[in-house]
């Protein structure tokens, strides 16, 4: 009995240490974001709340020049949001359609097309980023949401998620629907889409996070400050910090960090079970 307890206690200890390890940095970031620049500069990071919460966040969120020259964090939040949602929705729609074709149809080009789609999984955007930039520029899509989102959608991860999921849909459902007189489009809309609901939600969440967290591509392809996302804001504030010149605005950096972290974290936590299910099932 005693032995069993020790086992449980050591388990809890490990878990608590792990939880601290995973949360402490964000906690410190949050607390530090509520202090003044001077306090941080003189006394270092802060573990407890300070009195500058409203001031710092207000400045970062709403005051022009608070972080960037013109764009405020609230604007960047909006841009990140658009990127996250646009990316997620675009990806889900396109990959659902493609996966449907792959799983439910026999057609001549199926195999080559499948391989083309598969190939996209192999090469991350990073290694073809310059030509991608030129293609987008050539289409006049720089600084547009379309130009930001489409190249990211080109990778077919979503297609594979849905392919995997469709394959697990019982065959009899299609058979029943055919006996019920449904054609290909009806089956897709009436049956497949509704039963994919949780999967769609899960992938939307995952993709939202992925989109929100995009870094290099938006950094390179947005030239207009008004289109900056929060993650780019992070990069820029980091840049300013490392250039020095005046009292480093650590508190703003932290406030921005928290703002960039909060929405995806909330989404993941609120939809935790879907998210985990989607992540795990789709990757397998």
């Amino acid at each position, binding site marked *: 009995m005693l032995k069993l307890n020790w086992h449980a206690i050591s388990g809890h200890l490990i878990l608590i240490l792990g939880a601290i390890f995973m949360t402490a940095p964000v906690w410190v970031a949050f607390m530090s974001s509520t202090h003044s620049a001077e306090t941080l500069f003189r006394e270092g990071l802060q573990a407890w709340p300070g009195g500058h919460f409203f001031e710092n966040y207000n400045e970062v969120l709403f005051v022009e020049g608070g972080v960037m020259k013109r764009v405020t964090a609230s604007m960047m939040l909006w841009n990140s949001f658009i990127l996250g949602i646009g990316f997620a929705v675009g990806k889900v729609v396109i990959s659902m359609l493609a996966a449907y074709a792959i799983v439910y149809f026999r057609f001549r080009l199926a195999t080559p097309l499948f391989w083309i789609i598969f190939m996209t999984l192999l090469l991350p955007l990073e290694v073809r980023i310059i030509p991608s*930039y*030129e293609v987008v520029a050539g289409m006049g899509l720089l600084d547009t949401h379309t130009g930001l989102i489409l190249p990211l959608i080109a990778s077919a991860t979503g297609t594979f998620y849905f392919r995997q999921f469709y394959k697990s849909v019982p065959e009899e459902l299609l058979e029943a629907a055919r006996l019920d007189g449904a054609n290909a489009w009806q089956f897709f809309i009436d049956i497949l889409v509704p039963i994919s609901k949780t999967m769609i939600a899960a992938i939307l969440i995952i993709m939202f996070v992925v989109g929100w967290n995009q870094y290099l591509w938006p950094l*390179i392809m947005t030239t207009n400050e008004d289109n900056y996302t929060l993650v780019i804001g992070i990069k820029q504030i980091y840049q300013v*910090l490392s*250039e*020095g010149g005046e*009292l480093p605005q650590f508190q703003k950096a932290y406030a921005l960090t928290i703002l960039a972290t909060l929405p995806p974290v909330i989404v993941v936590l609120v939809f935790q079970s879907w998210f985990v299910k989607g992540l795990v099932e789709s990757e397998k």
Partner: protein
Amino acid sequence: ATEVQWWHAMGGRLGEVVDEIAVKYNESQSEYKLVPTYKGGYEDTMTAGIAAFRAKQQPHILQIFDAGAATIINAKGATVPVADLLAEHGDGFNKEDYIAGVRNFYADSDGKMIGMPFNSSTPLLYYNKDAFKKAGIANPPKSWEEFEEIAPKLKEAGYIALAQSHSPWIFTENFHSRHNLQMATANNGYDSTDVKIMYNNPELKMHWGKVKEWLDKGWYGYYGRAWGDNQDAFIQQKTAMWLGSSGSFGGLTKSAEFEFGGSFLPYWKSIIDEPKGTFIGGAALFTMAGHDDEEYKGVADFMKFLTSPEMQYFWHKETGYVPITNAAYDLAKSDGYYKTTPDAEIGILQLNQPGGDWTKGYRLGYYVQIREVLYKHYDDIFAGKTSVDDAFAKIEEESNDLLERFNATYN
């Protein structure tokens, strides 16, 4: 109004001043609208500008820093030389209007100015007067020999004597200028892209041997590559002296909570008796090709505004970058600015110190990467991973490889 896009690398306090300039300009007239955009550091801005040019989305004005000069000036057709721009679309251009120190750095081999040297800086020694007082030292060191004398005192007073924010710029490029040493063959690269680096010389190696020695003795602090890493250490009074840019002046006045002063960049008496001037750092504004005349008119109009004595004086006062025209310098003098703030003049005085054969500047391709090479090996020297001799042998080899590639690219 016609929009004029200006991509720059002026963050922090500098960025605020840029914005003020834009506001002033836009208020001064209604025909053109100047839109400044911060694109990150110098490297980021150059990257963004190049990418945009390839995508035919280039801004009208692009700020390119010293290390990128070879890349943009050698790319014939990428820019409209500022001399031509002002001659064609503005009121004409006269090189003599500009102070001597800035005329050549961004000019082609014929001496024609390609970029407008907007923010011209030069490395300066900043020192913490309180610290000096505490250590009982009256004056900042003029030479490195003097530095070696006072460093132990500062150490005793609880300070690391010195930090420095840009080893390639300050401890390499300007080292050559100050001591009138040749940096590269082919007239420091001005005459040809077929060029070899000459950093593997005894003087520079001696200097780095010393720096490493200082580091080990606790006289020298190294807080990282980033400009701010070292500047912050000075602001936090960990170091008593800091080698930075004259362009840091404005920021320091705002952030330092102690009295500080400025002084010339020290030199080795053992190398040269009378030090030469340094060459400008910072960056220049390049007018990108591929826009229409109406827009160029706007660019020219803005350039004129920017180089007006009033604006230059404003810029100089707010940031510490030197005024680039004689008229502006005169205005500052006559306004009595240097009476109240004598340190602000040090940069321009240093630039105007007598020149030598090797103080005009340099023109080296892939120099951004060459600076990476320098950083890498200097880091290794600091870390004790390599000897100074080996490091410079490597620097020579790797830099020459890069120069060879650059030469191959442009021929």
